[in-house]
């Protein structure tokens, strides 16, 4: 299973909270949370091909254009599934995850889902009918591991075209 991750500047390690204008870029291979996911990825025979990253400010400046470019890159890389997140309680990043996951779903043949914490109430409310959103904790700590595992399980189920209604009840919004 080939996976592509979508990160903001913080999760990709390219910047801090204040470096919002990191331009759209990408790295081959796993970085950020994908590294922590490795044991669960191994269980699901997943492999992170690439991580696409963009500062949250860069996204907010022109969501449509950034999302279009991300979709085009996803289309070019042709992964089995795209994980947008984990966005935790970072609101701007969560908004990016939800929109990009929806756009990938609409404009490509690739499966995609988002992951964030319940603090992003409005985004979850606006998108949960159209996008699969996996529940994560607010930050690291309690529940982080199971959330990462859930993301891998969801990726596998989506990639294989399995029925995801059980997963949706258990760990999605």
């Amino acid at each position: 299973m080939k996976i592509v991750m979508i990160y903001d500047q913080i999760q990709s390690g390219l910047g801090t909270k204040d470096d919002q204008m990191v331009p759209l870029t990408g790295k081959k291979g796993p970085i950020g949370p994908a590294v922590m996911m490795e044991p669960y990825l191994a269980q699901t025979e997943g492999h992170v091909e690439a991580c696409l990253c963009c500062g949250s400010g860069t996204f907010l400046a022109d969501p449509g254009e950034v999302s279009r470019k991300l979709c085009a890159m996803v289309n070019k890389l042709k992964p089995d599934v795209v994980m947008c997140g984990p966005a935790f309680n970072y609101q701007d990043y969560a908004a990016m995850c939800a929109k990009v996951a929806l756009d990938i779903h609409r404009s490509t043949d690739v499966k995609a889902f988002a992951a964030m914490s319940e603090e992003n109430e409005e985004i979850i409310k606006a998108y949960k009918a159209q996008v699969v959103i996996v529940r994560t904790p607010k930050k690291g700590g309690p529940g982080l591991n199971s959330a990462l595992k859930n993301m891998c399980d969801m990726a596998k189920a989506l990639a294989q075209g399995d029925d995801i209604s059980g997963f949706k009840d258990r760990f999605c919004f």
Partner: protein
Amino acid sequence: MLKKLESVLMPLAEKIGKNKYLIAVRDGFLLSMPLLIVGSFFLLIANFPIPGWTHFWARFFGDGWTSYFSKPTDATFSIMAVLAVVGIGYSFSEQMHVDKLFGAAISMVCWFLIMPYKILTEGSSVSGIPLNWVGSKGIFVGIIVAFLSVHIYAWVNKKGWVIRMPDGVPPTVAKSFSALIPAGVAVLVFFIINIVFAMTTYGDAFTFIFTILQTPLLRLGNTLPAMVIAYIFLHLFWFFGVNGGSVVGAVFNPILQTLSAGNLAALQAGQPLPNIISQQFQDLFATFGGCGSTLSLLIAMLLFCRSKRVKELGKLALIPGVFGINEPLVFGLPIVLNPMVLIPFMLVPTVNIVISYICMSIGLVPLCSGYAIPWTMPVIISGFLATGWQGAVLQFLLLILGVFLYMPFIKMMDRQYLADEAKGDDDKDGDDIDFDDLSFDDL
């Protein structure tokens, strides 16, 4: 196995992290921390750990020069329970959603209410606030009183038994009137408590709590097993990505700080220091460079590892590591959820604690004097300031021992990273993905 451990530890960490009493104690003590460090600074000048220091300066400034320097200490350490009560009352009021300033004030008043205003001098007694009880000996009573009085304050508030002022009255005036009845009820309750304790053989609540609770708890905290167990838990929490220091510290730090204050009081009085385990013992001898004593790990990384990933991280983490900050290592190496470093991560601090404890109990190294030395003070300097040159030597030796304990484990990781990097170099056609490569058709 790890999964089982996680399922036990995580809910525990969450419970401790969300417990409002523990949060209040933890945050409340923070009020006194900067003041105690400032107080320590003056005391340290007066008692610098070099033999003959005091006498040397006495030649220039006269014999009594140190008494001026102990004044800032008297104003901070000797009244640290006052700061603790106010701090805990304040932060607990925040947890209980009542006015913080009044909560702190009510806590302090109730605490003074049950304190015996009696100073014993050679058989007779005079009236006055006893320094005895406003120092470290009064801390545990202070914690209990702050909780109880703020609870009463919040309870009366919730019942709605408050005087409300019409609109147009300035908010500060309205606030002070609305605190009137809750404060009155709290004072009444402690008024009764004071009378009840006066009828017992203890005579007052301070003596009662000190004998029944504080002394046994401190005795328990001042043992090697207690310290080792606390630190094993602390590191397990870190392993699962939870700040172990703040979880375990919420329970353990009040005890450690009281033990430290006991040492400092003895130092000022010129008596032998009573406690081996104390806040400084934990901060300065259990770990160097942050949890897991990772300064040793850092040295091992820089000296013995060859993979780019480990070396670069080592360079990056060195400066913060010297000052006891090791988040780059904890999350970058990573140590969190990395079973390969779990063993030395827990072993090195344990070894440090055991060896330091033995050295101090057989008299090789003097006990920590109780100066509040910030945990960010670099190793060797901190040991020197806390105990004298013997402490600096002990720290240095433990640091080196830690390097060798970490070495086999980090080398194992290093070999794996090296192999990864060699493989990565082979199929490398540029690591970056360039969005400029997207053609118009792709979009």
